[in-house]
């Protein structure tokens, strides 16, 4: 037993060397943590926290719970088969009166209005008329003011809108509704819109990604084959627009695309307009501004460097010897390119396309400025919900859907290609 204590290596002050080492490692780690702490805190506060709040907002719905606490507590035990009993009406009337005093009655109406059209005015009118009513029975009083309060559906809506957490916004962001019985059905046809918008967003993003790849790949290949000083010059041509503000480039496109603008005039003067008319492909002058075509062209231009640069930087690292070896072993140029060169560029292609696709999903300014109303994408609708309709729940739900789509995409990419193969340069 004494042997072991003698063989332990000790530092000059007599502490075991192992402990000393651990101590110094711990200090190193703390110092490293201190160095990354500012960034970590920044990311938590400016990135993670807002996302969590957005996700919470998509299901958090405290309005009715806050304004009608007693009513919602009583409704919790209601079976929904027949009209609620007098105590529910009594509680509702009292709470509606209180809300009217604090000018919150419109909030109740607004929340119910999301599910039952015209409820907003019915609630505000009821609240106004209820001020004059001093005594029950409240069931009778309310149904006299508006027969809507004698409707089971109204109370079913109040019941499920008064739970603090609701699937309502997420469902409506997918054009779905929950019936009074809890079943999920499609929204009325004239309000169905979001599935179409989500599909459109994915379609435009896919189109832009494919176009940037088709345009960017040959250019990247060409530049990677040039001697450095020529390659640098060409890279500047790609980087200059890349460094220009997105808004400036979009505005520039909207000027170019105007009716009677540069592009239309060029097509006219060069005879292309005449030719297209003669071929029956066009009637009169081409209309480019506020179209899908303009949106895709502008987005492709803006996204091109994002696809091109990762591909280029991967191509730079591919030694020309592989191709030479393939050729010397008898492969045709095309065969060697497909079998030897292309597979080596895949990490760059994957990185560039993923980057462009994910960025395209969130496009807002470009479709708004050069596209028409039928080209607006999900981000445009998040803006409409927030700034125009004042419906933060729906805006958050749309954001949550976009966020989930991006995560799913990342997961699929990781399974198919492997995230370790992602090369940005």
């Amino acid at each position: 037993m004494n042997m072991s204590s003698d063989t332990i290596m000790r530092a000059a002050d007599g502490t075991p060397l192992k402990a000393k080492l651990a101590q110094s490692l711990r200090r190193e780690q703390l110092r490293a943590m201190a160095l990354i702490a500012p960034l970590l805190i920044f990311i938590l506060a400016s990135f993670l926290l807002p996302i969590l709040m957005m996700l919470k907002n998509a299901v958090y719905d405290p309005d009715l719970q806050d304004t009608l606490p007693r009513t919602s507590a009583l409704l919790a035990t209601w079976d929904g088969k027949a009209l609620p009993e007098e105590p529910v009406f009594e509680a509702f009337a009292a709470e509606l009166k209180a809300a009217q005093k604090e000018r919150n009655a419109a909030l109740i109406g607004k929340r119910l209005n999301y599910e039952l059209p015209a409820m907003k005015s019915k609630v505000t009118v009821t609240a106004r008329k209820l001020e004059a009513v001093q005594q029950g029975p409240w069931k009778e009083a309310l149904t006299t003011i508006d027969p809507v309060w004698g409707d089971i559906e109204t109370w079913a809506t109040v019941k499920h809108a008064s739970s603090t957490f609701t699937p309502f916004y997420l469902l409506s962001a997918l054009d779905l509704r929950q019936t009074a019985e809890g079943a999920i059905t499609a929204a009325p046809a004239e309000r169905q819109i979001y599935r179409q918008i989500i599909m459109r967003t994915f379609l435009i993003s896919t189109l832009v990604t494919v176009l940037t790849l088709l345009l960017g790949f040959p250019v990247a290949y060409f530049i990677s084959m040039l001697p450095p000083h020529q390659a640098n010059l060409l890279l500047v041509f790609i980087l200059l627009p890349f460094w220009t503000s997105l808004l400036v480039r979009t505005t520039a496109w909207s000027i170019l695309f105007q009716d009677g603008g540069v592009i239309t005039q060029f097509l006219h003067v060069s005879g292309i307009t005449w030719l297209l008319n003669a071929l029956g492909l066009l009637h009169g002058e081409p209309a480019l501004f506020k179209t899908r075509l303009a949106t895709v062209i502008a987005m492709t231009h803006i996204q091109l460097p994002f696809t091109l640069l990762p591909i280029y930087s991967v191509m730079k690292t591919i030694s020309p010897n592989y191709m030479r070896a393939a050729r010397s072993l008898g492969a045709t140029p095309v065969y060697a390119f497909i079998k030897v060169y292309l597979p080596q560029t895949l990490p760059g292609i994957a990185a560039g396309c993923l980057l462009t696709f994910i960025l395209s999903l969130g496009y807002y300014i470009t479709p708004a400025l050069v596209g028409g109303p039928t080209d607006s994408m999900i981000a445009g609708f998040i803006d409409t919900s927030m700034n125009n309709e004042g419906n933060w729940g729906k805006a958050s739900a749309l954001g949550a859907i976009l966020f989930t789509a991006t995560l799913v995409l990342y997961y699929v990419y990781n399974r198919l290609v492997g995230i370790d193969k992602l090369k940005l340069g």
Partner: protein
Amino acid sequence: MKKFATAVIAASALCSAAGLARAGDSINITSWGGAYQDSQKKAYFEPYVAKGNKITEAEYNGEVAKIKAMVEAKSITWDVVDTDTPTVLQACAEGALEKIDWGKLGLDKSKFIGGDLTECGVPSIVYGTVFGYDTSKLKDGPTKVNDIFDLAKFPGKRGLQKSPVMNLEWALIADGVANADIYKVLATKEGQDRAFKKLDSIKANVVWWESGAQAPQILADGQVVMTSAWNGRLQSAIDKDKKTFKIVWDHQGLDWDWWTIVKGAPNLDAGYRFVSFASAPGPQGDQTKYIAYGPANKDAIPNVDPKTLPNLPTAPDNLKTAFNIDPQFWADNGDALRERFNAWLTK
């Protein structure tokens, strides 16, 4: 030494005198931009600034959601906001605006056209939503609301506001509904379907404008053959920019603009002082020199610029087929119809 002491005493006396006088106000005022805000600048903001106050201007397109968002987030950066009537009613009902204390303003509510409509605003002007065209490009121009919907007679694009307000009303009028029945019909699901169906017929040929300044712009650019607009915007383009526009007054929709104060505004008292200043007959009459909107203060009517009189939406000739935009209808149904309108737009 004695001289120095006198100087110190004199200086401190001056300082305290300055301290007694109220330091100039500093407020944020948000309005609708373009020719309208320019007219407010000349008639209200500049004289007010000349009195030693400071005004920070902002612009918006009448989105009630923006006011509500500020109040809910308790981060209020606007003090005084110029709104239309549906907006003041909705924002008031949802608790986003201060209730106006007319005593504090020192104004007589009965002197203001429509002053009783809401507790949350002071009427400022009466405006009309009209439509117009460029006579240099269109010789025999449209004369009726039906012409907006007549693609055979007037081929080409037409500008309309990206909002259900006025578009649904005009769609029903073009579909044969009388002024008195517009809102009765529009309150029903069938009436709304009918209005959207009528709008469907020109949907592919509409350029949607969002800010008031865009309407005369797209007309001048030749992007549209005719456009809806607020009458003062077209009149300003005619008067100041010498455009050859013609205003069609058929079935114009009348509405007010209001001075409102955002609930919890950081400069509440200063906001009151500004609204009081801007609602006085003098500046109210002054504004008509710069834009063709009628003053809401009846006492300002003698001060109206005589050149502007025939161009006001309230001039008898212009009122023949006019109707009032029903503010209560839009305050109650605006949210649902805006949502449906936005869905309809993108299909």
